[in-house]
């Protein structure tokens, strides 16, 4: 069942020269965990704020179920929101912060004490209830802000880069907990981030957005393995996809001045070829590509080799125990399935 649907939504801020969000069509399923992923300034936060009602769209329609939400105020949208800077109320205790949505909206407060304690124990902050937010660590503050969002029992949970202000180990810990929370609450989560690891690990589906435009909405593995745009290939993955401007003849490709056999049904003559670093292998025999080793980066579980191919410097990801030829010449191999073809503008071909 479609739960949230955006129809041709655009947003242009006052005095801005271009749209922050441009003609976006997006359907979000009930109980789905959708991650909106994009670089900073891509319009992903604006999109979330449009769903929350904190911004008004310039054109287009937003539906929750069958209900048109354009003119519904944030208070009546039945959503909760978690912010990057936590946005806790500094003069209130943790208890009062969590209880705030119930008290502020004038709901029944008879079981409020038990409810706050239940949520606090769910988030492992039951010992902090009497403290003020200023006395808490960043991770604890974000847990409180999650609690404040949960108590409202919203239909949609909106999160705007909730982990970006935390350090790496806390991020990993809270990532798992937010995922668990999603399973436990059984409601729709819409999560905005610029961090591909968060998107990959948590999302049911990822919506990739760039310059206010929606590029692809798909499952994480689909979006990683079959990007529909060369930019997605270079944005996702660490290190990113290697891209070459190439000439295609139907049964061969010219990559970095080296001609390789490659049969394809693609008609275009000029194409962009994408190969992920982990799909390139070192071979001792004559490979399909030959280059020279510039440098090697040891990452513990793997090694990244920087290889110079004609004018390109590409990255090759190999197992940590790989032996890298000392003579600086390296033969690389890959299978046809791992080669992605894009047109000059970046669109995926065939």
């Amino acid at each position, binding site marked *: 069942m479609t739960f949230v649907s955006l129809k041709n939504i655009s947003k242009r801020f006052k005095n801005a020269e271009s749209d922050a969000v441009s003609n976006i069509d997006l359907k979000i399923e009930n109980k789905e965990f959708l991650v909106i992923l994009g670089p900073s300034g891509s319009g992903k936060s604006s999109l979330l704020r449009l769903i929350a*009602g*904190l911004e008004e769209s310039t054109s287009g329609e937003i539906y929750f179920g069958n209900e048109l939400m354009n003119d519904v105020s944030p208070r009546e949208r039945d959503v909760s929101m978690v912010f990057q800077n936590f946005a806790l*109320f*500094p003069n209130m205790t943790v208890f009062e912060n969590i209880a*705030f*949505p119930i008290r*502020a*909206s004038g709901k029944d407060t008879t079981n409020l004490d038990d409810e706050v304690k239940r949520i606090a124990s769910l988030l492992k902050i039951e010992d902090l209830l009497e403290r003020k937010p200023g006395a808490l660590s960043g991770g604890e503050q974000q847990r409180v802000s999650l609690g404040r969002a949960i108590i*409202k029992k919203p239909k949609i949970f909106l999160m705007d880069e909730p982990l970006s202000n935390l350090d790496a180990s806390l991020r990993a810990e809270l990532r798992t907990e937010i995922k668990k929370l999603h399973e436990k609450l059984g409601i729709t989560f819409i999560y905005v981030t610029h961090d591909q690891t968060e998107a990959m690990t948590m999302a049911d589906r990822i919506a990739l957005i760039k310059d206010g435009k929606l590029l692809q909405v798909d499952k994480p593995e689909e979006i990683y393995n079959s990007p529909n745009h060369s930019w997605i290939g270079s944005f996702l993955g660490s290190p990113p996809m290697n891209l070459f401007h190439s000439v295609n003849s139907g049964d061969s490709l010219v990559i970095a001045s080296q001609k390789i056999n490659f049969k394809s049904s693609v008609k275009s003559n000029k194409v962009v070829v994408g190969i992920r670093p982990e799909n390139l292998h070192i071979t001792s025999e004559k490979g399909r590509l030959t280059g020279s080793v510039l440098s090697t980066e040891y990452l513990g579980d793997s090694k990244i080799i920087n290889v110079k191919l004609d004018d390109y410097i590409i990255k090759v990801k190999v197992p940590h125990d790989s032996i890298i030829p000392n003579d600086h010449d390296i033969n690389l191999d890959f299978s046809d399935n791992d080669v992605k073809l894009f047109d000059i503008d970046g669109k995926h071909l065939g």
Partner: protein
Amino acid sequence: MTNLKVPYVFLIPCLVIIFLAGIGPVLQSFLLSLSEFSLANPSRAPVGFHNYIALLSDSIFWKSIQVTLLLVFGSVFLEFVVGIFLALLITSSGQRARSIFSSIFVIPIAIAPIVTGILWSPNSVFDDLNTLLYYGLSLGTYIDTTRPVIYYSLIMISDAYIWAPLLMLVTVAIIRSIPREQYEAAEVMGASSWTKFNKITFPAIIASPAIIVTLLLRMADAFRMFEVPYAWNFWLGQDSELGASVDTVSVLMWKMFSSTMYDFPIAQITAISIVLLIITLSLCALVLRRSSSLLD
């Protein structure tokens, strides 16, 4: 002379001036307050703390202290409340309206206090207003400016008229520093505008060291209030009466000095001024303490 001592030599002229202009007169007044001395009878006879002890049992002095305290707390409270209202008006209005409002609101700061004592006087405001109320609207009633509740309120309003803009500027700065997300979170959680003010804006204002320092400074300054109560002495026809109902400590000192009924009791006046100095200095000490925590 060693090189280490040279800097101190250069400091001497400056220290001499500070002593002559700042510390000297205060010491001089303090010594004066410990003697029996007036311009009519200029022989100085030391009397110890007699002048201070006499003050303790002087009902006119106590009355002026009460009047001053009433006006200090009344005026500063009014300034604070009006300042918050103006600040909310400015922060919630659009960019154009904001710049127009803030320039209009700030004008009174530049007005001389004695002028506000005249601006808000019975003759300038209430003659016409009362004519309108009594005859024009036939209400059969008018604003009686000789009633204490009216004239005390008017003095407070006159003071707030000048100083509320200062409180407004400080409050605007505090409100601007509150993260926008706090309001957005409250909005999404279903809070009304009143709840947002009551739970976010107001707590942030009163928790701010800047507002506390400003209020303390205003109180220290208001303790020396002179011009507006002085004007009201005339509006109430009490200008030759010592211990009139609008005599603040400063006005009392002036009247004691200028009245021909007394023989210019300099020693008593300096004793009062030393008491006033102690009150304002202790408030200033509080300000310094607070503001050092602000700067940390």
